[in-house]
């Protein structure tokens, strides 16, 4: 009975697994296709060569990674500072703040993107790298707060007071006592922000300026005129890097349990 149940469980996992990976496998396979279409015309690495020669793809990769990294980093700093401030607030004010914090997370990307675009136009900033970065920071901050806040609440506040009593300056006390306590929350907040930014299309779509493309917006514009298989090659490389990154972080000797967090 138990065996049968296990079998069904594994079969179920396998089906979902196939569902998740079938399209990705096709991307990888077609990235080695000699021709452009869906017909197999022989093995070739020409799309990989084209990929490395394409300045537009190089720029897009650069923009995507730097925006993801910078926005996650800045959002983490803002988020951690805000958490301290928010925790010091009481009752109703804090609830109000937290409700405010929830809006960007609950609201759809479409509305967030549009609203930011309209606001940027109203202020009169030129659309470009900086507007995308600002937009990404702003949708990342709430995720950092959600991740750091619970840690901060669990923390014993008196350790910080104790450090002060022992003569540490507030900044030093924060860095030496509070921050290490918060670290797991900070890291998972940072990683989540990084991932959200990496995968975002809609908000970038509405806040980007001339000549600035992330991988997402580049793909979107290419989809309209028939995607080049060099994009398949790019996704294959991204996929493999993701595997390497996740393997390194998950199966390093100390990394025992994957931390999964709600959005």
């Amino acid at each position, binding site marked *: 009975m138990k065996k049968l149940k296990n079998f069904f469980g594994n079969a179920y996992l396998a089906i979902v697994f196939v569902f998740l990976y079938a399209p990705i496998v096709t*991307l990888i396979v077609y990235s080695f296709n000699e021709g452009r279409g*869906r017909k197999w015309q022989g093995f070739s690495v020409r799309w990989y060569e084209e990929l490395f020669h394409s300045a537009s793809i190089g720029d897009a990769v650069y923009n995507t990674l730097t925006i993801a990294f910078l926005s996650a980093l800045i959002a983490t700093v803002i988020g951690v500072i805000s958490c301290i401030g928010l925790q010091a607030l009481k009752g109703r004010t804090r609830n109000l703040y937290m409700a*405010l914090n929830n809006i960007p997370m609950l609201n759809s990307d479409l509305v*967030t993107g549009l609203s930011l675009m*309209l606001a940027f136009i109203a202020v009169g900033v030129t659309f470009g790298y900086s507007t995308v970065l600002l937009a990404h920071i*702003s949708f990342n*901050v709430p995720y950092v707060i959600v991740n750091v806040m619970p840690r901060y609440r669990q923390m014993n506040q008196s350790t910080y007071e104790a450090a002060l009593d022992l003569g540490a300056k507030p900044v030093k006390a924060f860095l030496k006592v509070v921050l290490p306590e918060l670290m797991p929350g900070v890291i998972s907040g940072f990683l989540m922000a990084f991932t959200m930014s990496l995968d975002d299309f809609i908000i970038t779509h509405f806040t980007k300026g001339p000549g600035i493309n992330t991988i997402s917006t580049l*793909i979107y514009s290419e*989809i309209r005129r028939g995607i080049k298989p060099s994009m398949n090659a790019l996704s294959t490389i991204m996929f493999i890097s993701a595997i390497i990154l996740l393997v390194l972080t998950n199966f390093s000797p100390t990394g025992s349990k994957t931390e999964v967090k709600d959005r």
Partner: protein
Amino acid sequence: MNKRKLLSLPYLVWMIGFTVIPLLMILWYGFQKKTGGFTLEHVLAIARPEHLKPLLISLLLSVICTAICLVIAYPLALILRKANLKKSSFVIFIFILPMWMNFLLRTYAWLNLLDDGGLVYVLMQKMGFKGNIVGTYSAILLGMVYNYLPFMVLPLYNAMTKIDDFTLNAARDLGANERQVNLHVILPLTFPGIVSGITMVFVPSLTTFVVSDLLGGRKIFLIGNIIEQEFSTASNWNLGAGLSFVLMIFILVSMAILNHYDTLGEEEEA
């Protein structure tokens, strides 16, 4: 203590600048005539058939999508929880991995299978199904489920791992069978996970325009497509803002209702 309160000020400024004011801009455009002056026209435009139909289709598809995701993800999370930790961390890894690929590429990849000459297309033709798959509601639904399934799996799995084994054993010791344990112990305890999973699947699938653009052969307009087009091609920003305002209200109301159930669940828990 007062000094620390000050630290919340930058946050407040930030949130007002990048959340509140932008949302007010939507109101500003949405309630304004093209030529200036207040109007309700753009907000009420949602009732016009060419907007109402996409809205209803979006609603229907996103509700079905959410339901399918829940049905697929719940047993999955249950299986993962019952599997031993080492194995399950590997499996979770497998579920996160596709999310690290680009969202557009993931969706586009389905075209390789569904479009003419694709594996699924050929199989369907062999099984006697004639006609195109791309450009149908099923294709869009498939794309939605595919993209948003992990958003359902992760919170559910999270909620389940929080349940103590002792709780389950206690229930079993008290004579509950497996089904009763699932129904009366695990289900109520995972309620918050269900709610957050529903939120995370429902909102993006309600407002997507990318999935329908890619897998709908641009034959099918969802409400997201209508709004996106008002901004990007029809250059009727006021109408687009009016419709997004309605959509936003829609989302916030449904979230409020969900949250209401969420707190009910928490009370049961307590």
